C-alpha cells in the first residue's frame, strides 16, 4: 500500500518537473513576426479596409539620439527607426539586450499612452516569464514622465530582473519615439 503511494508521489513529482522544464524551454523563441504583430494591432480597431497603416521612419537627429541613449543607457545604432502609423496610433518594434541576448519587443502607443507591449522574440535561456500577457498588461496606460521614465511602477520578476529592465527601457523609448514622431516639437 505504502509502496504504491510512494510510486504515485514519485511519478507525480517527475511529471511536475518535466512540465516545469518544458515551460522553461518554451520561454525561448520567436513568438510572432513583425508584420504579423503590426497586422494584429491595427486590425484590432476595425476591419483591414478601414485602417490605413503607413510604414514610416523616424530619423534620429542628434537630440533624439542623445535622449534615446539616455533612456537605454547605451549607444543607439542606425540613423532611422522604422514604425507603423495609423492616425495617432504608432507601433514600434525595438530590441534591447536582457542579460546577454537581444529581446525583440513590440510596443503600441496611442494618444501618448501605451496600449500594448508584446515580446516578439526572446533569446535568453532564463527569465522568459516576462512575456506572459498578464505581466505585459501592466504596461497598458503607461505614459512618459518629464524625466523620460514610465509613470507607472512595474512589478519585478525574480530571476528575470534584467529582462524586466529591458522591457521598461524599450517601453519608455517607444513612448519617446512616439512623441517625436507624432508631435516633434515636444
Amino acid at each position, binding site marked *: 500500500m505504502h509502496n504504491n503511494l510512494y510510486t504515485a508521489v514519485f511519478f507525480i513529482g517527475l511529471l511536475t518537473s518535466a512540465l516545469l522544464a518544458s515551460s522553461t524551454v518554451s520561454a525561448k523563441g*520567436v513568438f510572432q*513576426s*513583425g*508584420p504579423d504583430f503590426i497586422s494584429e494591432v491595427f486590425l484590432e480597431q476595425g476591419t483591414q479596409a478601414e485602417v490605413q497603416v503607413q*510604414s514610416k*521612419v523616424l530619423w534620429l537627429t542628434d537630440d533624439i539620439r542623445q535622449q534615446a541613449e539616455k533612456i537605454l543607457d547605451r549607444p543607439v*545604432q*542606425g*540613423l*532611422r*527607426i*522604422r514604425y507603423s502609423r495609423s492616425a495617432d496610433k504608432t507601433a514600434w*518594434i525595438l530590441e534591447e539586450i536582457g542579460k546577454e541576448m537581444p529581446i*525583440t519587443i513590440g510596443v503600441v502607443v496611442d494618444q501618448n499612452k501605451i496600449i500594448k507591449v508584446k515580446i*516578439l*522574440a526572446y533569446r535568453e535561456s532564463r527569465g522568459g516569464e516576462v512575456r506572459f500577457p498578464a505581466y505585459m498588461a501592466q504596461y497598458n496606460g503607461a505614459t512618459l514622465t518629464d524625466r523620460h521614465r514610465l509613470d507607472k511602477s512595474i512589478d519585478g520578476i525574480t530571476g528575470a530582473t534584467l529582462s524586466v529592465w529591458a522591457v521598461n527601457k524599450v517601453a519608455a523609448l517607444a513612448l519617446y519615439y512616439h512623441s517625436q514622431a507624432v508631435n516633434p516639437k515636444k
Partner: protein
Amino acid sequence: MKSTNSIKTNILWHRRLGLSIFIVLIFLAISGIALNHSPALKLNSIGLSNNWLLSWYGLEKPSINGLQLDNKWLYHDGNNLLYVDKKTVAPCSAPLLSGSKNEKILFALCADALLLLTTDGDLLESFTQLDGLPVNARAITAVDDSLYLLTDSAVLEFNSDSLAITPSSKTESTLLDTLVTFAPLPKVLEQHLEEQDSGPSISLETVILDLHSGRFFGQFGVLFIDIIGLLVCILSITGLLAWISRLRHVKQ
C-alpha cells in the same frame, strides 16, 4: 620494525606521487575555479585568434573577399562585423551573402539580416527575418530603379523605402549578370583587417575547458588526465594509510 618500514614506504610513495603531479593538480584546481565562475569572468567573450591556436583547432583564417560597389569595398571579418572600406559598420552574422547599391543606399545581405547603409557606410537600419526578410534570401541586386531579392524558390522585388517585399515577374537567370561578385580585397584593407584582430577565434572558456579535461591534446590528453585522477585517489589512500599507521605507531 616492520610497521616503521611500512610507514616509511607509504610516506615515500606519497611524497613521490605528490611531487610528480602537484603542478598538474594546481593547474586543474585553478582552471576548475575559473570554469565555475566563467560567466562572471566573461571567459566566453574573450576570443583567442592566435594562428597556431586556430590551426590546432583545425580552423584557418579565411582569405577575405569583398564586394566592390563603385569605389567602396563592402566586406565581412568572418566573425560578426561588417566593414565599408576601413569603417566598422554594424554587427552582421556571417557570412556576408551579397551586396548591392542604388543611388542613395548600399545594401548588405548577411546571414540573418539585410543592412541598409548610406553611401558613406553609416547604418540606416536593419531589416531582419523577424521583420519579414525571407529566411532563404541569398542575393540582392539592383536593376534600374528596382531592387530584387533572390531566394531559393523565387525572385522578389524589394522596396527600400517601405521595406515591402512583393513577388516579381523577373527570373533568376535574367538577374545573374547583375549580381556583384566577390573579389579579393586590396592589400590595404587586408592589412587593416589584420590590425583589427578580427576573424575566427576560439573562446578562452573553450580553451580552458579543453585543457582542464585534457581534450586539448587529443585522446592522449584525456588519458593523461584520467591517470592524474587515479593518482589523486592513490595519493589520498597513501596519505590516509600513512596517517593511520603513524597513529597506531604512536599508540604502541
